[in-house]
C-alpha cells in the first residue's frame, strides 16, 4: 500500500467515524434537551387536570385533555387500521401466494401510499369532512389517522407473514383446513409477535402525528366525550402552547413534549420486548 | 530438484468463539500439482482456504493459530504486506462473483492493482488471461458489456481469468464447479489441468469423481480434522483410515 493510499483510507475512515458519532450525539442531544427542559416544567397537576380558566395566560390547569385525547385517537385509529390491515396482509400471503405479479403491484401501491406526507391525508380528510358536512371530531381524526397508518400497519405485518414457510401451509392443507382458516388460525399464530410489533409501531406513528389531525380532530379544553365531539391531542397542545408568548405556557409545552416522547419511548420499548417474549407458540424452522 | 513443497501448513487451529473449526492441521501442498481437499460439507474446507489468503481477517470472531509457510515465510505472522500476499494467490469461489464492471474492466482492474497501467500492455494481458481461461473466443466481441450479462459458466471462467491476472503462483478454488452446468464444469477442469504446469492449485470439493479426475494429491477432512492425505492413488485405491473408506464408499456425505 502506498503512502497516498494509506492517507486516503485514514481520511475517509475518520469521516465515517465522525458521521457515526454525529448521529449518536444528535440523538443524545435531542433526548437530553427534551428531558432537561421537560422535567423542570412537569408537575402532577399537569398530568391530572384539564385547562382551567386563563390556562393559556399561565394560570392553573394541565394537559389531561390532550393526553387522553391522543390516547383515544391513537387507540381508535390503531384498532381500525388493524381490522382493515390484517385481512389485507393475510390475503396477500395466503390467497395470492401463487400470483406473484398481483402481490408485487399491491405491495408497490402500499409503498406509494406509505410515502405520502401526513399533511396530504389531513387535507384529504378535511375535504371529505366538508363533503359530508361533518364537524371536526374524534371520529374524523380517527378516520384520517387510520388512512395514514394503514400502509405502515399492512406492510409491517406483510413482512412478517411472508416469512411463514410454505411447508407449514402445506401441512395445514393436508389436514383439511380451508384458506381462511389457514390465514386466521395458522398464519396469525405463527406471526403473533411480529403482528404485535406492527400494531405498536402504528400506534406510535398515530400518537405522534400532528399534521393529519390538525384539520380533522379539532381542539378542545374538555376531556374527550364522544366520537362526534372535537378532541385535543398532545402534538397540537405542544404546538399551540409553544406559540404563546407567556413563558409559563411555553414551559408547559416542554413538559407536554416530555410526556409525548415518554409515551413513544415506552411503546417502542414494549415492541422490542414483546418481539422476544411471544415466541412460545412459534415453531422455529 | 528444488524444494517441491509450496505451502506448509503446521499445527493450524481455528476457533470461532468457543467452537473449534479446524484442529491441528498439518498439510504439505506441492508445487505445480493439483491438491484436492475432500470432505463432506461443514468440515472446515472453506475456512482452511480462507486462512491461506488471510480472508479470515475479515471475520473478527475467528481466531487463527499455527503457521502457514509459503516459500519460507509464515504468512499468518505478516502484518503489512497482506495485499501483496493475496496477489500471490488467485481465488475462485463457489459461485462466480464478477465485479460490477464491464468484462474488460474485470480483468484490467486486477492489472491496475498490480500496477500495470500502460494501455497497450493492459490490452495484451487482458486478452492473454481470457485465453488462458478458455473464454476469449466466446466473448471477444462483448468486452464492453457488463460482466453480469455473461452466463454463469462464462462468469466463473471470467473470475478464473481475473484470478490469474494478479499473476499469482497459487490458485485457490472453493468448489468452483458446484453452481455450473456439466459442460462449463468440464471446461474449468480442463483449464486446471493446463494451468498446473505454471501454478500450484488447491481445489476444495466434495465431488469424488472430480477429485479422481484431476487430483495429484488428496487431503481428506472430516469435522475439522485431517483424516488422511496422500497421492490420489494412495487415498482412492488403498485408504488406510476407516472414515475415508466409509466416505469413499458413499456411506456419508
Amino acid at each position, binding site marked *: *500500500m502506498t503512502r497516498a493510499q494509506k492517507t486516503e*483510507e485514514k481520511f475517509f475512515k475518520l469521516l*465515517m*467515524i465522525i*458521521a*457515526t458519532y*454525529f*448521529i*449518536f450525539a444528535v*440523538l443524545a442531544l*435531542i433526548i437530553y434537551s427534551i428531558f432537561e427542559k421537560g422535567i423542570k416544567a412537569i408537575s402532577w397537576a399537569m398530568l391530572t387536570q384539564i385547562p382551567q380558566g386563563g390556562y393559556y395566560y399561565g394560570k392553573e390547569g394541565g394537559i389531561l385533555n390532550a393526553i387522553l385525547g391522543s390516547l383515544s385517537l391513537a387507540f381508535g385509529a390503531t384498532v381500525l387500521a388493524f381490522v*382493515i*390491515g390484517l*385481512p*389485507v396482509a*393475510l390475503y396477500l400471503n395466503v390467497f395470492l401466494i401463487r400470483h406473484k405479479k398481483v402481490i408485487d403491484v*399491491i405491495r408497490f*401501491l402500499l*409503498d*406509494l401510499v406509505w410515502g405520502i*406526507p*401526513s*399533511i*396530504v391525508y389531513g387535507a*384529504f380528510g378535511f*375535504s371529505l369532512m366538508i363533503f359530508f358536512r361533518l364537524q371536526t371530531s374524534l371520529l374524523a381524526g380517527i378516520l384520517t389517522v387510520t*388512512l395514514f397508518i*394503514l*400502509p405502515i400497519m399492512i406492510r409491517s405485518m406483510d413482512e412478517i407473514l411472508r416469512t411463514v414457510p410454505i411447508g407449514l401451509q402445506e401441512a395445514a392443507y393436508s389436514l383439511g383446513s*380451508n*384458506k*381462511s382458516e389457514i390465514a386466521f388460525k395458522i398464519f396469525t399464530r405463527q406471526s403473533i409477535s411480529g403482528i404485535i410489533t406492527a400494531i405498536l409501531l402504528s400506534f*406510535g406513528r398515530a*400518537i*405522534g*402525528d*400532528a*399534521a393529519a389531525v390538525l384539520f380533522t380532530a379539532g381542539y378542545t379544553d374538555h376531556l374527550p366525550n364522544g366520537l362526534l365531539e372535537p378532541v385535543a391531542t398532545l402534538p397540537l397542545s*405542544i*404546538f399551540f402552547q409553544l406559540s404563546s408568548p407567556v413563558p409559563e405556557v411555553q414551559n408547559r*409545552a416542554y413538559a407536554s*413534549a416530555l410526556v409525548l*416522547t415518554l409515551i413513544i*419511548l415506552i*411503546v*417502542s420499548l414494549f415492541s422490542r420486548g414483546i418481539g422476544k417474549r411471544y415466541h412460545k407458540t412459534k415453531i422455529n424452522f | 530438484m528444488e524444494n517441491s513443497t509450496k505451502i506448509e501448513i503446521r499445527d493450524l487451529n481455528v476457533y470461532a468463539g468457543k467452537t473449534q473449526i479446524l484442529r491441528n492441521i498439518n498439510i504439505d501442498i506441492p508445487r505445480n500439482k493439483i491438491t484436492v481437499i475432500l470432505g463432506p460439507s461443514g468440515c472446515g474446507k472453506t475456512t482452511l482456504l480462507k486462512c491461506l489468503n488471510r480472508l479470515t481477517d475479515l471475520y473478527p470472531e475467528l481466531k487463527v493459530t499455527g503457521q502457514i509457510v509459503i516459500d519460507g515465510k509464515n504468512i499468518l505472522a505478516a502484518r503489512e504486506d497482506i*495485499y501483496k500476499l493475496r496477489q500471490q494467490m*488467485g481465488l475462485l469461489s463457489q459461485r462466480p*462473483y464478477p*465485479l*460490477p464492471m464491464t468484462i474488460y474492466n474485470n480483468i484490467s*482492474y*486486477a492489472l491496475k*492493482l498490480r500496477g500495470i497501467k500502460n494501455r497497450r500492455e493492459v490490452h495484451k494481458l487482458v486478452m492473454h488471461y481470457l485465453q488462458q481461461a478458455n473464454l476469449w473466443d466466446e466473448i471477444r466481441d462483448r468486452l464492453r458489456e457488463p460482466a*453480469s450479462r455473461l452466463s454463469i459458466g462464462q462468469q466463473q471462467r471470467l*473470475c478464473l481469468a481475473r*484470478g490469474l*491476472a*494478479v499473476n499469482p503462483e497459487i490458485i*485457490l478454488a472453493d468448489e468452483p464447479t458446484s453452481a455450473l452446468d456439466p459442460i462449463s464444469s468440464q471446461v474449468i477442469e480442463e483449464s486446471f489441468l493446463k494451468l498446473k504446469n505454471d501454478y500450484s492449485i488447491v481445489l476444495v470439493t466434495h465431488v469424488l469423481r472430480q477429485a479422481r479426475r484431476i487430483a495429484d494429491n488428496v487431503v481428506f477432512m472430516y469435522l475439522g480434522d485431517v483424516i488422511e492425505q496422500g497421492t490420489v492413488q494412495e487415498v482412492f485405491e488403498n485408504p488406510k483410515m476407516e472414515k475415508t473408506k466409509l466416505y469413499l464408499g458413499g456411506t456419508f456425505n
Partner: protein
Amino acid sequence: MYLLNREQRHVINYTWMIISLLLVAFLPFLLFLGLYLKSVLLLHDYSLTDLIFSKTWKPSSGQFGFYPFIVGSVWVTLVAMLITAPVCLLTAIYVTQYTKKFVLRIMHPAIDILAGIPSVVYGLWGILVIVPFISKYLGPWMGVSTMGYSILAASFVLSIMIIPFVLNILIEIFRAIPMELKEATLSLGATEWQTIKNVLLKKALPGIIAAFGFGLARAFGETMAVLMVVGNVVRLPHSVFDPGYTLPALIANNYGEMLSIPKYDSALMFAALLLLAVSLFFNLVMHFFIVRYNKY
C-alpha cells in the same frame, strides 16, 4: 359452539378481506381524486403555469402565486439532503464494513428512536437548540445577521428527521451485497478502502440513489417541524439564513381561515395536491429505477 358453520365463516372472512383490499388498493386514487375535485375551482380560473410560477401571494385579492412556497420547499429539502446524504452514506459504510457486529446492534435501536420521535418534538428541539445556535453563533460567525428562524434551521432539523429513514435503507443495501464479492476483490490484492470505493459503492449505486430519492420525497412533505423553525415569510429567500415558507407549512398554517376567503380552501387543497403529486412522482420514478436495474 360456533354460531356459523365453517363454510359461512369462510365466506365472511373472505368478503372482509376483499373489501379491505379494495379500500387499500384504491386509496392513492381516492386521495388524488378527492384533492383534485377540491382544487378544480382554482384550476378553472387560473392556468397551472400561472399558479406555479407567479410570485404574488395575496389570497384576499385573489392572487395565488405558489412560486415562493415551491422555492422554499425545494431549498429546504435540497439543503437537508446535502447534510443527510453524506452522513448516512459514511455511517452505513462504517457500520457494515468496518465495525464489529455490536455497533450495528446498538445502531438499530438508535435509528428506531430517531424515527419514532414525533415531528412536533423535532420542531421544539429546533426552536430550543438550532434556532438560537444559528442566530447567536453561526450567523454572526459567518457575518450575517439572522433571526435564526431560517431555511438553514429547517434544513438541519429536517436532515436529522430523515436520517433514520435513509440510513435504514442504506444499511440494508450494504448488507445485501454478498460477502464473497468483497472477498473476491480483496483476493486481487485490493485494500479495504479500494474494495469499498471501486466495487462495493459501484454495486450499491442504484440502491444509494433510490435511498436518497425516497429520503427527498419524505423531506419534501414534512410539515410540523419545518413549519416551527422556517420562519414562515412569503418571500423568495436569497440565502440559507433567510426565512422562507414551504408548501406543507402553508397548508398547516392557514387551515383556520381557509373558509373565510373565496377560493382559499381550493388553493390550499391545490397545495396538498402538488405535494401528493411530488410524492407519488418521486416514489414511482425510484421504484421503476430499482426494478429496471435489478434486471441486470
